[in-house]
């Protein structure tokens, strides 16, 4: 196409006191990557729409009143971005400490690395409510352990119009007690799920797990694995 020969407009900004030039439309997250200043993020995934949920990627832009999500904000000429100043670090550390106090993150290696990087106090919020859910094992393909769910929304998004257009998943309740659910919490086989597996593929924690993997972890025999994954036998927790 002839239009492709038109030069792409570029943007020049400052990230952590370094000049950076990127094509117009580049997010701060991607721009920082070009100078190897990795900005941490939890909910962000290349294949899903960025919603700015986890706010771990927040950065200071021009010293503004609010911190801005780097995964969404496009670079603008002359922007002055700080990816690791005191405001940013305090917010990130507090979010991580609160998250760790609410969710079972033991099987979320990328998040564990972040918790270590930020040297968080793992006991920062004593006596606080955790989000605990019963393990859901209602289909032959995968198990759902929402105690490990950190609400990144990726599964809901790939199930809906980011990929599969199946619309089996939604959110129940709101606030701290928000949880991922099928319609009226029916078992997966009774929902519109087509078992494409994309939700399992994008889950950043152990909340969604292939059943074979789950079985191996729990010492199932080959026979048990075959039994449990091929016949769709329901096993109530």
């Amino acid at each position, binding site marked *: 196409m002839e239009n492709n020969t038109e030069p792409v407009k570029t943007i020049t900004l400052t990230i952590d006191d370094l000049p950076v030039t990127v094509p117009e439309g580049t997010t701060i997250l991607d721009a920082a990557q070009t100078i190897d200043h990795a900005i941490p993020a939890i909910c962000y995934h290349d294949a899903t729409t960025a919603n700015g949920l986890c706010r771990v990627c927040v950065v200071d832009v021009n010293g503004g009143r609010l911190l801005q999500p780097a995964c969404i904000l496009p670079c603008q000429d002359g922007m002055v971005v700080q990816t690791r100043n005191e*405001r940013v670090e305090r917010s990130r550390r507090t979010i991580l400490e609160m998250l760790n106090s609410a969710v079972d993150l033991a099987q979320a290696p990328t998040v564990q690395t972040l918790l270590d990087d930020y040297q968080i106090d793992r006991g920062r919020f004593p006596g606080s409510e955790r989000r605990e859910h019963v393990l859901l094992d209602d289909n032959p393909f995968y198990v759902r352990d929402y105690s490990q769910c950190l609400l990144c929304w990726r599964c809901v998004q790939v199930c809906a119009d980011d990929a599969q257009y199946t619309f089996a998943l939604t959110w129940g*309740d709101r606030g701290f007690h928000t949880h991922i659910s099928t319609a009226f919490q029916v078992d997966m086989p009774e929902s519109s799920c087509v078992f494409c597996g994309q939700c399992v593929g994008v889950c950043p924690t152990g909340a969604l797990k292939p059943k074979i993997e789950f079985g191996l972890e729990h010492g199932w025999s080959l026979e048990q694995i075959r039994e449990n994954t091929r016949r769709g036998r329901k096993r109530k927790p």
Partner: protein
Amino acid sequence: MVTAPLEDILSKYEGRARDALLPVLWDIQTAYGYISPDAARAVSHLLRIPAADIYGVISFYSLFSDQPTGETVIQVCTDPACGLAGSDEILRELCAELSIDPGDMTPDGRWTVRATTCLGLCEHAPAALINRRGSGAFSHAPITHSVDLLNGTEKPHQGILGGQTNIFLSGTDGQRRQTLDEYGDYQGLRHALNSLTPQQVSAEVEASGLVGRGGAGFPTGMKWRFTWQAPFQPHYVVCNADESEPGTFKDRVLMEHRPHLLLEGIALCAYAVGAQQAFIFIRGEYPEAEQCLRDAIREAESAGLIGDRVMETDFSLHIEIRRGAGAYICGEETALFEAIEGKRGFPRIKPPFPTTHGVFHKPTSINNVETLCAAPGIVLHGAEWFRPWGTIKSVGLKLVSVSGHVNRPGVYEIPFGISLRALLETHCRGVRGTLQAVLMGGAAGTFLTPDEIDVPLTYEGLQAIGSTLGSGAVMVFNDTADLRDVLRRLARFFAHESCGKCFPCQLGTQRQMEILERSDHALPGDRDRLSDIGFTMTQASLCGLGQTAAAAVLSALQKWPGLVEA
């Protein structure tokens, strides 16, 4: 009790799109007391919405239920103003009388009783909202005896109004709605349609210095101009009548008493921004105000003041009421759009802003009730008419909602610039007892100490002492109030109302509440914890709810550090 069969309800919505979801769910909720999976499936087929999405919507809004509720549902407000007036005791008595716990239904299916967040009846505290299956809702305040709620001895509230009453409250005695005959012709609108271009209307409003009265203070004329200029069609007007800030009830009073002033303001806005369709999004907790608006719309339509070819000109305007279903977050403009569109009330990322991407992602001017009510006078009399009241930076008259320990709580129309002391001592006839604290701006506001009440009530005056006028809520506490208890109620409010979208607010409102719940026996480090949570919510949350959810707590800790031991 007569319940419409589900088919009759559904047939009303044949051929409609997803934005009919909240209306149809309201009809089902009212008829059956809950929305069953079968009913939701039928709605899913009718409106072609995934069943999961419908469940997500039902479980988001407090006034929808997926479990059966009693024939009568009584919700007692336990937020600060009602809490101070003894609503906990009333809730307890009610539950004891019926032998149930709050939130439960009696075994015979007649009653459900639960606590709720602010009902916007703070001047009549304590207040309750009563939903009767089949016939809808009404409010009850003040509650003097819990048994009145069971006997159905309805106590309609009347307005308690005062102040200068030149713009907003003129011609009303607080007893009942002003009819169209009493209000008269829409003179401002007639003047605009006959003599002004849409741009001239915006310019007049911009010149008046009017800024948004919902709390954010954005210049109104500028918002109208931006919407007019947006290149995509159609354009919309949305009136934000989702007044849910604890301690704020001025918009309720305006809608109950002067609905025609609001309708005329909406019509002017629609003319100025080039819209033919307007929505009034009113919270589900305001049944009386909603009825007043419905009656007023009918009057105005038959008089040719709204509808097709208004006043026989080429300007047409249709105004539709949309009822919220119990979610404070829907006062946030983009969450409100999502609710109109039939979705969970999740706020959107801004930019883009509503003037280009509003409801249905079309250019939208969204304005607060009070803001729109200021427009008819400005357009009729000119910008200069508005400016003599107030100060250079805070122009005009302002409605304030005063509740708590004053002798005469109510809605007062005051010129910007009078002191808080004058408001309390003159208009409200003094504080009951010895003043301990004032919460300015509602749950999302900040506390003032008794030696700060000479502050002038202006945007700049309050800003100068680190406070905010917000929506004009003034909650007064005397020395009998336990401020820890007040903070707990505020924290519970935000934990209940956080939408759950972004991590800082979803986690922070919960942790803030937990720490304040134990503040009588705080753990070492609790003050630092609150400080970190508050800092993070304020700076990193996605929307205004999270960004202000710690404001009152942080201001209280600054002024009374002893409330939470370090």
